[in-house]
């Protein structure tokens, strides 16, 4: 139990020494993506192989082992999820991908025992064709700047000492012993940090309101509800560096005078819940959370609350209602939560990523943070790159970088050489951008001008075979489902909009419906109570603006140019091209394809699920839609 600053510095010194003694550090990604691909088996295999070789090994930083042990750690998400399971070996930052259990023996024999690289597991540069050994040489990482994700993939999220060894809890101790709350707020104001949850409201300003509000009890809430389809950065931070989130909350708590905090996490993120709970328990046991922390006079306690699946709970007033045990419905503001929030006490709600930026801002200064990004949107932002891009994963880049750089340089362009069509940015609150926007600078203001939004940072790349009307319908279906129903424009408006969009994709709509759709969109935007409704029409409005001809094709020609909308197409086999290989019939889940070997096959339109698997598998381009 740490009781003073000296105690803390001692622990820091000890953990640094322990880190310095490590001969090699083996980091096995244990983010959700890699775990799904079997990374925990890889970890177990490493452990037994290393033990088999009688090498000194430790699985916790401070474990007492003979000198120069091999440290075996699980780590948080490295970001390059698609290539998982990932293994990083220090020193040198050697990066192995697609590591299976059976590969471990070779890594141990070659790399760990003999310091030789296992060439076949290294990354191959797509242009030069050369293999590169380290993470820093991979194009996916080269344009990134990591602040919030600084430790993700580098430290063991289940080990408090590892976080401390890497400079953790230095920022809060500096705030506690060398700064006043006013100075902390000032530093955050100077940094220009804006809320990373999507709204983009200046964090320092929000704090100022809460700090100046009188009240014996104040709360900090960490919003980890991340319901945006296509976004997973908060999940990765909570899973990969949970102590950083707690430290951010403590800094916020000290700044506004709060002594209690809540982390509101989605129930769909069981791993994040587990790691956060463990982090809270460990920090409390060590004396970094609780009463009179390090004898500084500051007390702070953290509770973990699991959400129960409601997108609207990302809205701060709805989130508060949910923590209070009610239906998560928003209420009109003012009063703002900074004045009257959880149980009517002044409350600050910050997003996970916002909080994860704070330790760096306090340690390195607001000016340092402002050195990244653009004038109006300083700092870095994490994006979840997904969809039809070659390299999917989590990236953190300075604000202001262009969409082209993200999609083509970091993301490696589109998979299967598909043609780029659009990027959907910001989830259901955001919009679809086109080729013409590829050189747009990614920051809050530029995106808003284009009708989109950073939102929480989901970035879904779409290729030529995506139907934009269908995408708009998809988002409308989502928000219609998630509308809490409190206000009429959102509840009824999104329902009607979905009906019109459905009619369009099924070829039942007329041109007058387009006007009605637009009119409804603007009404919902203007008339809704909270952010969910206000931004729900964005995907429709942007697709109407940039892809109007596609809407027209559905309505006038009863055709879906991308070949997606089922009501408007059927699958057929070109009898001249079909060689009768039978592959299509084999993969068809509905057994809709029949034919004799080496003779042209046919599709039974009535049985066909229109899933497209046959078309994907056909080597002769014999299957077409019409």
């Amino acid at each position: 139990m740490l009781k003073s600053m000296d105690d803390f510095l001692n622990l820091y010194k000890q953990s640094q020494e322990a880190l310095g003694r490590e001969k090699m550090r083996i980091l096995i990604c244990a983010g959700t993506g890699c775990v799904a691909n079997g990374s925990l088996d890889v970890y177990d295999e490493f452990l037994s192989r290393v033990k088999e070789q009688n090498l000194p090994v430790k699985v916790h930083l401070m474990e007492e082992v003979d000198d120069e042990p091999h440290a075996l750690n699980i780590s948080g998400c490295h970001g390059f999820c698609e290539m998982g399971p990932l293994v990083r070996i220090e020193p040198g930052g050697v990066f192995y991908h697609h590591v299976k259990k059976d590969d471990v023996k070779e890594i141990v024999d070659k790399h760990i025992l003999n310091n030789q690289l296992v060439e076949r597991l290294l990354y191959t540069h797509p242009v030069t064709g050369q293999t590169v050994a380290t993470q820093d040489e991979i194009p996916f990482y080269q344009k990134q700047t990591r602040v919030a994700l600084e430790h993700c993939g580098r430290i063991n999220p289940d080990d408090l000492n590892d976080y401390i060894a890497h400079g953790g809890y230095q920022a809060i101790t500096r705030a506690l012993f060398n700064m006043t709350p006013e100075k902390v707020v000032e530093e955050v104001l100077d940094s220009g940090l804006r809320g990373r949850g999507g709204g983009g409201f200046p964090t320092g300003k929000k704090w100022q309101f809460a700090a100046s509000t009188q009240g014996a009890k104040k709360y900090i809430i960490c919003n980890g509800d991340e319901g945006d389809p296509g976004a997973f950065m908060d999940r990765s931070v909570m899973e990969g560096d949970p102590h950083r989130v707690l430290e951010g909350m403590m800094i916020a708590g000290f700044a506004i005078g709060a002594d209690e905090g809540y982390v509101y996490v989605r129930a769909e993120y069981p791993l994040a819940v587990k790691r956060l709970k463990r982090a809270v328990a460990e920090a409390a046991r060590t004396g970094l959370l609780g009463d009179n922390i390090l004898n500084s006079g500051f007390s702070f306690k953290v509770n973990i609350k699991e959400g129960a699946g409601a997108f609207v709970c990302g809205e701060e007033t709805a989130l508060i209602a949910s923590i209070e045990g009610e239906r998560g419905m928003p209420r009109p503001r003012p009063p703002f939560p900074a004045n009257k929030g959880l149980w009517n006490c002044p409350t600050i709600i910050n997003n996970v990523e916002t909080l994860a930026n704070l330790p760096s801002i306090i340690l390195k200064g607001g000016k340092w943070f402002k050195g990244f990004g653009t004038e109006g949107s300083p700092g870095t932002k994490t994006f979840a790159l997904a969809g039809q891009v070659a390299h999917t994963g989590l990236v953190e880049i300075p604000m202001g970088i262009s969409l082209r750089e993200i999609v083509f340089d970091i993301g490696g362009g589109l998979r299967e050489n598909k043609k780029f069509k659009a990027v959907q940015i910001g989830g259901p609150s955001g919009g679809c951008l086109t080729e013409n926007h590829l050189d747009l600078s990614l920051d809050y203001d530029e995106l808003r001008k284009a009708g989109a939004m950073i939102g929480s940072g989901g970035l879904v790349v779409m290729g030529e075979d995506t139907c934009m009307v269908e995408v708009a319908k998809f988002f409308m279906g989502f928000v219609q489902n998630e509308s809490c129903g409190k206000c009429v424009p959102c509840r009824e408006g999104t329902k009607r909009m979905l009906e019109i969009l459905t009619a369009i994709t099924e070829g039942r709509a007329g041109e007058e419906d387009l006007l009605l759709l637009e009119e409804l969109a603007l009404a919902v935007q203007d008339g809704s109570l909270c952010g969910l409704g206000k931004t729900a029409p964005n995907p429709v409005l942007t697709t109407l603006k940039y892809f109007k001809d596609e809407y027209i094709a559905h309505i006038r020609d009863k055709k879906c140019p991308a070949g997606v909308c089922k009501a408007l197409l059927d699958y057929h086999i070109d009898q001249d091209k079909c060689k009768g290989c039978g592959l299509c019939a084999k993969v068809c889940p509905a057994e809709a394809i029949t034919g004799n070997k080496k003779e042209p096959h046919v599709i039974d339109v009535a049985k066909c699920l229109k899933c497209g698997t046959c078309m994907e598998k056909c080597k002769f381009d014999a299957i077409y839609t019409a």
Partner: protein
Amino acid sequence: MQQRKFQRLQNIIDGHEGNVSHLIAILQEVQEEYRYLPEEVLTYIATAMGIPPATVYGVATFYAQFSMIPKGKYVIKVCDGTACHVRGSEPINFALRKELKLTGGEQTTKDLQFTVETVSCLGACGLAPVVVVNENEVHGQMTPAGVLEVLKKFQVQEEN
């Protein structure tokens, strides 16, 4: 039997000291126990906590996590987040539902073996399209044919 059932319920409520603000957490624990929220359980919770049944019912129907109808032994969640959607989650869902003969809004097979639901995003977008079975078995980069193989595995398991 009935007695024991409510005893377990009462223990969960007591574990939260009957705190009304813990209603969601209580419902989560109860659902874990019964795999769904039976009506009489909701009534019991309301009476035991001294709040209107409408409040309990309101919360239970508001959140996606709660189910008022029994779920199958295997809950298969097909992710329909944007990333999964554009990489083909719909055909996966179709294939599953067709195979299990689920029609209309049906989610669970009559023999209570399988439940198929779509969820809005599981946050594993890098592996899209994703299918999760019983919370812990994640299958990435799924295809309609692949998901039927996964299903077959459980069907065979059940037959033996």
